[in-house]
């Protein structure tokens, strides 16, 4: 709790320090219409999405790691992000859906399908290699189907339209899209956060949890459905962003002395910070053209992922 407060204070302090208050005040005073456009229409959706999507990735990553009893599970590794992208592409280009909330629903359905497929392929308490292999297979299949769907799409510009979105982007989203992504994600996130104590006890094994009067398979079902809703809604608006959902929970568990359930809320905070920082980097990149968000998170995340993998291997053989 203390830690959360300190983190929150730090973040607020940083925001305060980095905000150019004086020019901002001047702009609001001289041209309120432009200021409104800049702040509310352009900046606000982007900031909200970075914080909300990052928190969603951290929280669902932590919850999925806890129920799969596997520190490598995450929305991207389990294939649920790719499933959500496929769902949203099919909904948008073939069912002709345009409402952001309907697309979010398609994303959630795709993510849920991917997670159910993973449970079928890898089993409930999957060892790391079966989880990674099954997740990889689902990601590849969903990616290929997404490309196929875009190639066959009625609109000839589908590929170009979808490219930025598929690589993960928070730019130029409307407040309606923000609501479609973050309201379901917040509801699902609160649903998941209720289980942090139960997920800690799951560390003792499903039998111990059942002996305490909980229903482990129901817990698993609820976590899978809530994660699918949260991830699906966010992916349908922002595309899939890798690694944040893997790394934020791993970092959070260092703060919770290894407890997988207690790490849920800190993982959400860390995810929000990571994705905001990554989005900041896409804009600061000195290449003239913004680098896609997914590229930044992959560049930062891959070394950490490899480090975790090596450490696990080292631990297994030592």
């Amino acid at each position, binding site marked *: 709790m203390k830690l959360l407060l300190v983190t929150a204070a730090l973040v607020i302090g940083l925001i305060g320090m980095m905000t150019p208050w004086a020019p901002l005040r001047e702009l609001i005073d001289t041209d309120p219409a432009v200021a409104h456009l800049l702040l509310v229409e352009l900046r606000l959706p982007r900031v909200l999405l970075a914080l909300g999507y990052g928190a969603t990735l951290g929280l669902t990553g932590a919850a999925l790691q806890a129920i799969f009893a596997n520190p490598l599970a995450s929305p991207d590794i389990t294939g649920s992000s790719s499933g959500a992208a496929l769902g949203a592409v099919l909904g948008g280009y073939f069912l002709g859906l345009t409402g952001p909330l309907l697309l979010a629903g398609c994303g959630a359905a795709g993510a849920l399908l991917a997670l159910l497929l993973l449970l079928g392929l890898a089993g409930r308490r999957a060892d790391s290699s079966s989880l990674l292999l099954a997740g990889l297979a689902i990601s590849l299949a969903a990616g290929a189907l997404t490309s196929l769907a875009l190639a066959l799409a009625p609109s000839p510009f589908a590929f170009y339209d979808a490219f930025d979105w598929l690589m993960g982007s928070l730019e130029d989203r409307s407040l309606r899209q923000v609501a479609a992504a973050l309201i379901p994600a917040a509801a699902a996130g609160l649903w998941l956060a209720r289980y942090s104590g139960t997920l800690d006890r799951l560390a003792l094994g499903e039998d111990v949890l059942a*002996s305490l009067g909980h229903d482990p398979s129901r817990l698993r079902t609820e976590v899978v459905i809530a994660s699918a809703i949260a991830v699906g809604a966010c992916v349908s608006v922002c595309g899939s962003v890798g690694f944040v959902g893997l790394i934020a929970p791993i970092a959070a568990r260092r703060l919770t002395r290894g407890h997988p359930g207690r790490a849920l809320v800190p993982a959400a905070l860390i995810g929000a910070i990571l994705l905001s920082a990554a989005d900041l980097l896409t804009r600061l990149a000195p290449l003239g053209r913004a680098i896609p968000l997914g590229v930044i998170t992959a560049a930062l995340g891959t070394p950490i992922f490899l480090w975790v993998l090596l450490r696990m291997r080292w631990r297994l053989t030592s």
Partner: protein
Amino acid sequence: MKPLLAATGIGAAERLARLDLSLAPGSMTAVIGPNGSGKTSLLRGLARIEGPGGSVWIGDENLDAMVPARRAALLGFLPAAREMIWPIAVRDLVALGLAKPDDGRVESLLDDLELTPLANRQADRLSTGERARALLARALAPRPAVLLLDEPLSNLDPYWALSILQLLRRTAAAGAVVLMSLHDLHLLDAFDRVLLLNQGVLMADAAPDLIATDPVFAETFRVETDGGRWRLR
């Protein structure tokens, strides 16, 4: 004496024929039988893990009707699996068994099981025997009225097997029910009562000195004693 734990119709399809069981407070009971005889199914059935069959009462309370917090206070279950994948420190692992933080209780259990030097070691980095002790401490932590332990003495050397039996005897003397499955038949003398299972059927239910001389015992295990040593029949 009025039983503390009363169970009726406990069973599991193809693994354990339905049976009734009452256990008195202060008693230590061992469940023995060859591999696959239904020991784990019996313990899981009593802990209500095995599905809805039968009913289990602790005192006047039906286990199925209890909220998780009440169940945690009355029932301690230790599964046979000893793996732990999360890097949780031994001290925190023991505390996971408690509804409210109680440092005094955790420290005294760590002390009883000589885990104090390992208290800050991550449970996934312990030896199997050390982890077995840490997980047992977790099950004991809330001072449950009923302890159901699946092979708590496996992976332990003789010093630890005997020490844990002594600790469980103290727990039982304080009024608890202890029921555990057991492989090492040399340790039967530590118990008040022995249940012998074979192929999912309760074959005998008697005091340890009676059970070892029962012909059913030799038949079930397919061994016999010869001046204190086992040999194949």
